[in-house]
């Protein structure tokens, strides 16, 4: 029998929520454990098996010089690297500091700023190493995590479309909250993956999965302004978990300069 692929889970600047999604896969956890050898997953087990690893799941963003080194070590030990969650793929909520002077922020937050050694920016993993696949979301969707691991194990392409949340809304038969209720929604510019969770409960999309491919937030801003959304609220909409992600970043910076 073929040896099971070795799986490692790594944490950088993050809240642990995404890697806990793996433990949250209660019904499927045994199937996962059957299919892979969980070799390094401190949240789950203290038993750590040395590398190299077939598959590394990386959570969190790079915020310190030490972590910027560490990620390269992980890349060297891993055949495949998949980043999981908004922190690892776009810098996360902590990337809000990228829009400000981080020394000012440190002085505001910490009683002893001299103990803090941090990089000025929170950056995604792909800014530092080659990443084989990025899983979006804050947090990630556990079904998508299972799908990406499953696809990896079976050597096939994961079914992970880059289309808008709107398409998922329509797959579920949801009514458009923006058109029918006048609720501001980031769905038209946001990457699918959550199964249109918020609009299914009549809330606007918060953009947890970051910009979709070919997103056009510039046009959405015009429409949201017509709906009466003010500048500060627009900034907050684009500057959340994926604030530093390409189109969201550009649009919030444009609004700021306007």
């Amino acid at each position, binding site marked *: 029998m073929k040896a099971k692929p070795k799986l490692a889970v790594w944490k950088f600047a993050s809240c642990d929520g995404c890697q806990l999604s793996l433990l949250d896969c209660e019904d499927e956890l045994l199937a996962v454990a059957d299919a892979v050898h969980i070799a390094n997953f401190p949240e789950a087990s203290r038993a750590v098996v040395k590398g190299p690893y077939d598959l590394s799941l990386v959570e969190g963003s790079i915020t310190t010089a030490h972590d910027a080194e560490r990620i390269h070590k992980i890349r060297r030990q891993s055949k495949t690297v998949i980043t999981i969650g908004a922190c690892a793929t776009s810098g996360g909520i902590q990337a809000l500091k990228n829009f400000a002077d981080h020394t000012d922020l440190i002085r505001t937050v910490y009683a002893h700023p001299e103990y803090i050694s941090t990089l000025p920016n929170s950056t995604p993993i792909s800014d530092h190493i080659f990443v084989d696949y990025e899983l979006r979301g804050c947090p990630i969707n556990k079904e998508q995590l299972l799908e990406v691991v499953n696809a990896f194990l079976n050597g096939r392409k994961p079914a992970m479309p880059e289309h808008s949340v709107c398409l998922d809304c329509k797959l579920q038969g949801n009514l458009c909250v923006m058109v*029918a209720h006048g609720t501001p929604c980031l769905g038209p510019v946001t990457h699918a993956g959550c199964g249109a969770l918020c609009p299914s409960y009549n809330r606007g999309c918060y953009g947890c999965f970051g910009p979709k491919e070919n997103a056009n937030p510039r046009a959405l801003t*015009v*429409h949201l302004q017509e709906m009466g959304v003010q500048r500060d609220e627009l900034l907050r909409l684009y500057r959340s978990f994926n604030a530093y992600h390409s189109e969201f970043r550009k649009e919030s910076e444009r609004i700021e300069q306007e």
Partner: protein
Amino acid sequence: MERAELGHLIDVLQREGREVVGPIFRNQAIDIGPITTEADLPIGCVDEQERATYRLTRNGSARVFGFSEPAASFKPYIFPQRQRIAAFRREGRGFVDEHHEEPIPRLALFGVRACDLAAIAILDRILLEGPYVDESYRRRRESCFIVAVNCAQPGGTCFCASTQTGPNCTFGYDLVLTELHAKGNHRFLIEAGSPDGLEILEHLELSEPTDDDIDFARRQREHAADSMGREMNVHGLTELLNDNTQHSRWDDVASRCFNCTNCTLVCPTCFCATIEDTTSFDGKQAERWKRWDSCFTLDHSYVHGGAVRVSSRARYRQWLTHKFGTWKEQFGMLGCVGCGRCITWCPAGIDVVEEIEAIRGSDEKVREEVDHG
């Protein structure tokens, strides 16, 4: 038929073993869903539709069909969002086919407007009468009994009179209703369009319509045709669009378009789908699923090595020129039935009528054989 007999019609359809689906009130809008009794119908509801806006109010009227076209069409019932099309289990060195067709419910589509009837006819032409028959669609379509309704209340984004697909139902139904509601008189004209429809009529308590009834229905029909929210000149659209593939308007509309796919998914004639494969963790089982897709996604135009339509400009142009131009060359009719859903439900407020008029108004005849993206 007296108003009170409408509930009886639903009962009769159910006794025939049919699930009745039609307009229902859901989440501040009129959607299409299961109807168990006539109380499920959105009686007294009035909608206001404009670009990117849908608002519903109850006006206390007793009218059953006092609204215009519902948010959704009947498409999900004949062309579902997702369906499994294959399933295999690995056994030894080969595979065992584990796919079985799901039983399809016998449906009665209730309260179908002329625009949606025309849309079903278009889907029939493409999915049943072309060189490749969609078997799943065929089975679903054959299970449908259709109770149509003549539209008395076109909405703000409707233009079926322009596309000559409404507001009156002329074909494709088993029964058709005309609601007659005025001055304390509340009745329905009911006509059969098929032997199945005639059979249902035999179970109902009916009386001959009066001359006044017929006259009222005629005037209502004329009034509906005259109160379309929009008007589109459909003359020579194929040539117009083919001649303007490089029109500057495509850049203009691309700057406003989210390529979010809403227009195509609410469109009752859009039938694009993609294929997704799944496996079990141990790789012993595999399934193939078909799900709705849209020409506004990048994946839709993916061919080996990359996608053909990368820009919003290319994607919007694909949708508009197909629906209103090349569709005719391909299938022999316009791909649009004038229901206006793509105008109401486009969150960016893009209006196909306006886009086509803009191109017609400044026919640049800028056509190039090769266009990269």
